[in-house]
């Protein structure tokens, strides 16, 4: 055998990583930081919507805060604000690290991040003022969309540039997913806008385009980014390679092929040709293949390393995310069955499922990325282990309360709706306690988010005292201790 030519090693790996992180700091911190602000805004909008459903007089009388508007704002800020920015930051940073190149076009990406945020503010204001397009999931007025699309084009360009300049020879699984996101997302947004708001297709074909998009923005944007993060973080933190390369390959392509077709399950029973729905149901059921393969790959890698969950914040969120990826995907595939949809289609069950996926799988993986990435980007540790613990437990408990309440209420609501002898208002009254329980779940989730935000603000501001080792979950590090140590160092104590 002839020896393979060794590629020129530009910089040794660790130094390269430091250089990569240094180059990407301002961009990633901007994307992640603003994503958390949008998460807070989205949670508040979600809470207002939630309260209005059990106490309709809450903040009543103000047209701009009517349920139909604040609820649209909730989705748009959660998906584009939190999801879009958190995922883009993750995408850029992971790609830079995996390619071992400096982040290119940093100024362009910074400007892009600012423009994207302006677009979100204007789009939100437009919806609150009654300029929603009326297409669920694409409510932002058309004039705000270029402000969201153009910055994304910068991200796509940066991503491809890094990929083609990459120093590493092989391509890691996460990179397939990141590559896929950058190809899919712009096509997705542009064709969906063309088909709905720009009127390229008519009547109910619009509805299909609408839900092809609505489903795919979760399946082809949030999900692949989440999976890429899990593929990166789990082996990294526990220091073991991923279980099986071949399974990764199967998981990736089956996911890419089947998820695309699943969207029409949102229209089951609707006025569409039966075959379009059938395709959606088949696509949804075939999703068992990628979900099981990806699941085996993540969980088998974890096998034997569960004790690390006690200490590592990153791993805890990442494993929570990857486990709920498996569970919520099983739930979703079963939910797509026609007999299931007959009961749950128009009910709160769907909302329960959405938040199981978004707050149980996607959000925790984005949090895990930030817990892992921020100390490396800022060269500073997380201030308080207690705040991380609060964040974690609030996320778990709040999410479980929310999801259980909505799924249970949804099934009962659906069964009652299918029994015409039960008056509609009785069903409405039945759901109210569960809607109130959701508000409780939402408050707990918001508490967790605020805990995270405090830690985040602290890590991006320079301060006098910083921990010298990574902050682990089982340490006693909290705010009081930090202030004490800070005072000591001010009085000329240890630094």
């Amino acid at each position, binding site marked *: 055998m002839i020896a393979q030519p060794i590629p020129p090693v530009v910089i040794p790996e660790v130094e390269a990583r430091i250089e990569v992180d240094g180059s990407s700091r301002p961009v990633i911190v901007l994307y992640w930081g603003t994503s958390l602000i949008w998460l807070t805004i989205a949670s508040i909008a979600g809470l207002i919507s939630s309260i209005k459903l059990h106490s309709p007089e809450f903040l009543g009388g103000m047209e701009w805060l009517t349920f139909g*508007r604040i609820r649209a704002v909730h989705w748009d800020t959660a998906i584009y604000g939190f999801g879009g920015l958190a995922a883009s930051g993750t995408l850029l940073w992971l790609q830079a690290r995996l390619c071992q190149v400096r982040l290119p076009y940093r100024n362009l990406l910074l400007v892009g991040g600012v423009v994207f945020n302006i677009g979100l503010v204007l789009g939100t204001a437009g919806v609150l003022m009654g*300029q929603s397009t009326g297409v669920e999931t694409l409510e932002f007025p058309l004039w705000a969309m270029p402000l969201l699309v153009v910055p994304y084009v910068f991200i796509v360009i940066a991503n491809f540039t890094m990929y083609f300049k990459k120093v590493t020879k092989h391509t890691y699984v996460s990179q397939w997913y990141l590559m896929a996101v950058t190809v899919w997302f712009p096509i997705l947004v542009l064709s969906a806008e063309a088909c709905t708001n720009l009127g390229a297709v008519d009547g109910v074909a619009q509805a299909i385009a609408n839900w092809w998009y609505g489903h795919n923005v979760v399946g082809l944007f949030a999900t692949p980014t989440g999976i890429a993060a899990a593929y990166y973080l789990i082996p990294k933190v526990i220091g073991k390679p991923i279980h099986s390369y071949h399974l990764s390959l199967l998981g990736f*392509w089956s996911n890419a092929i089947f998820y695309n077709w699943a*969207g029409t399950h949102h229209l089951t029973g*609707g*006025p569409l040709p039966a075959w379009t729905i059938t395709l959606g149901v088949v696509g949804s059921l075939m999703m068992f293949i990628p979900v099981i393969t990806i699941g085996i790959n993540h969980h088998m890698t974890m096998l034997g390393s569960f004790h690390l969950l006690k200490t590592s914040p990153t791993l805890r969120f990442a494993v929570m995310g990857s486990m709920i990826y498996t569970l919520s995907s099983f739930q979703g595939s079963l939910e797509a069955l026609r007999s299931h949809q007959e009961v749950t289609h128009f009910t709160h069950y769907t909302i329960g499922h959405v938040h199981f996926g978004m707050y149980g799988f996607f959000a925790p993986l984005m949090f895990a990325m930030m817990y892992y990435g921020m100390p490396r980007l800022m060269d500073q540790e997380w201030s308080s282990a207690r705040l991380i613990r609060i964040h974690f437990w609030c996320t778990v408990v709040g999410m479980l309360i929310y999801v259980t309440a909505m799924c249970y209420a949804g099934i009962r609501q659906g069964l009652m709706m299918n029994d015409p002898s039960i008056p509609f208002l009785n069903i409405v009254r039945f759901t109210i306690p569960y809607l109130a329980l959701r508000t409780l779940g939402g408050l707990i989730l918001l508490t967790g988010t605020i805990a995270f935000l405090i830690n985040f603000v602290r890590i991006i501001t320079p301060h006098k005292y910083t921990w010298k080792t990574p902050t682990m979950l089982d340490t006693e590090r909290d705010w009081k201790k930090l202030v004490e140590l800070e005072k000591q160092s001010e009085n000329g104590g240890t630094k």
Partner: protein
Amino acid sequence: MSRTFILAFGIFLTIASSITGLVIIPNWQFQALKPVVKLDGTRYPEVYFGDQARGREIYIDQGCIYCHTQQVRMKGYGADIRRGWGTRRSVPRDYLMDRPHQLGTQRMGPDLASIGARQPSVDWHAIHLYNPQLTSPGSIMPRFEYFFREVRSGEAAPADAIKVPQQSNGVTHIVPTDRGRALIAYLKRLNQSFPLPEANQ
């Protein structure tokens, strides 16, 4: 390098095939659909004009879609027809004029595909929108009082004023504003009772 192109191209193919299969082909299938001409010479479905068109925009900007669907499922699948939400299932032709569509996916409130047939009374709609508790105690539908001018006891009620069943804060009558009138005109127009032949297949 060539592997990268295979990857990117494969990724592109997955999405291109799904939009072709799910959106472009059905849309092409729907191109053949035309409104039917009824015996009296009018068409079904008719375009939205005047108040109906404005009312539709208000329905959209208030986000009624997040609580109401406009689609009746077929007999034997759910209880839509038995609940009286329609006389037949909805079909693609019912939506020829709908842009953007307002099918909806959530039924916190009843389906509205045929609300115009089920509830033709302007007064009922006005009072319900003004304060849902007056017609439907325990409802969680928001109040849309900003579509109405309130007339208090002691003030002279104009001819088109609608009497409120229970007085509160001294309000005896309400008068729909232009927007209120438009929204009600739109609700009254929502009616899928015309028996399209394909709905029976």
